[in-house]
């Protein structure tokens, strides 16, 4: 799930908590988010929201003077994280093929001797 991926992806504990809150509720106002996040103040929450929004991990909607946030499951950051995971997984898959075929060859050699 995209929200789980975002949850895993971000190492900053506060931002991870914000994404966790957003993953549980469809949409939150900035005020609701601040009430849900206890470890830092309102100003810090809003700067973390800005970072998450710039990174494309969350979407922002404005109505009048209120701002609402939600996890952006189709954001470019998600796509990039997914691409990186495929890239690294692919490297390990190729290493598995090479290591196991070398191990087989080694076993054959030993049998031959």
């Amino acid at each position, binding site marked *: 799930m995209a929200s789980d991926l975002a949850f895993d992806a*971000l190492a*900053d504990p506060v*931002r991870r908590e914000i994404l966790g809150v957003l993953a549980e509720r469809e949409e939150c106002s900035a005020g609701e988010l601040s009430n849900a996040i206890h470890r830092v103040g309102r100003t810090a929450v809003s700067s973390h929201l800005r970072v998450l929004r710039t990174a494309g991990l969350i979407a922002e909607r404005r109505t009048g003077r209120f701002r609402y946030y939600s996890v952006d499951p189709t954001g*470019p950051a998600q796509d990039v*994280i997914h691409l990186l995971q495929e890239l690294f997984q692919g*490297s390990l898959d*190729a*290493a598995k093929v090479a290591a196991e075929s*070398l191990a087989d060859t080694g076993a054959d050699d030993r049998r031959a001797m």
Partner: protein
Amino acid sequence: MAYVAVSAEQRIDAPPAAVFALFGADAGAGWLFDATCDRVAVGAAVTLRAPLGGHPVELLGRIAAVRPPSTIELRLDQPWRGTLRVRFEPAGAGTRVRLTAGLDDDGLRWMMRRRGYRVPAEPTGGAHAVGLLTSKSGSGSVFSAASEGLAAMAVEEINAEGGIHGQPVRLVVGDDATDPAVGTLEAWRLVHAGCRSIMAATTSATFERVSNELRGCATLLVQTVMNEGGLGGGLRVQLGERPADQLRAAIGPMMDAAGGRRWFLAGNDYVWPHVVHGKARSLVAEHGGTVVGERFAHLGTRDFTPLVEAVLASGADVVLSSFVGADLVTFERQCHEMGVRARCRSLALALDEPTRERIGAAAAPGLWGVAGYFAELPGATNAAFLSRYREMHGPFAPPVSTISESVYEALHLYAAAARRAPDDDPVGVARELRHGRADFPRGTVTVDGPETVAQRLYLAEATADGFLVSHQVR
């Protein structure tokens, strides 16, 4: 700062020691384990060719930790800064391999742009925005590895001195991917992000194109690195070493070292190498030498076999190697493999510390560079500069060189010029920048015109682990 961690895992039916031994062994074990490194040891430079979206992108870094047979940790510098940790754990008779890669905000943004997404610019309000156009990917990523780190260091120093006209300097970085077309798009992005000046530490191919595309735009464009000149004036300033000065300093000593006077000219096919060769023809003749052959190869070439064969067939005593970055690395490694070192000495005007390091301990000896700066230069200013760089970026940051140091200098020259100018109007700043003098890690640098820079030049012989900076030659 956001820090994204990505992980992957695989179970392999082979013991940890056997799987660990695949790293760097070129055994067809995928792009990561087939890392290119001359040794698996702490500090060794590593290149990974990652198939990113179908195109190989070279990830450059070095080994930060090795604990056989359980852990290898890499620090990556290009195209993003981050860590890459591979753990090999016993799992039954086999191995569980766990890979964790971390990258920061800038790395994530680089990836998004590479995928074609429009990434919103970070607000630069209240700051004096300066662009840095560098090569984070493509051949130039080798020589540019330390450029961003040194730019950050210069900006920190400038801001500690109060910034420019009361505003802090804010750096916005663009990656030309060693491609003039990409460089142009990135230059426009920097302009739209609010940069009224751009420090370009790219090839002249990019600088020339960007200079042309940005005409009519009120942006000051400064080429910081060695270049052929010819575009200075108005809002264009070209700092750095000139080919004729480098060649005059090196031609005589190179013929002495080689014990012969026949030259072969080989370089990348763009404006700077062409100008270098043009100057070399007349200067070699002036010094009583002859040119016995000349070849060019496009930027990004990875097989120089026919070219190296032509060098060997020519009977040359000296090779003038006008390749840059990863092309210079590959060409010199192939020259070494094919026996050129036994027959010729080589002079490479763009040979610097990160490039020498990747050419490697075996292939580098026999190669000379000539530039205004080498990290080995004596002097308290250089010592303080190097220790500050290590303090800021750590022991595994890429080595500094004349190319990356030029970015540091250009930013300081720019800040001094901008402070002397009455306001932030780039025309006035450019006017001030055309005249300046400062003491830098390389020594005293005097700017006297849009493309006239006076500095000392040094000839340096590459060794297995550094440079032997012979003496001040000019």
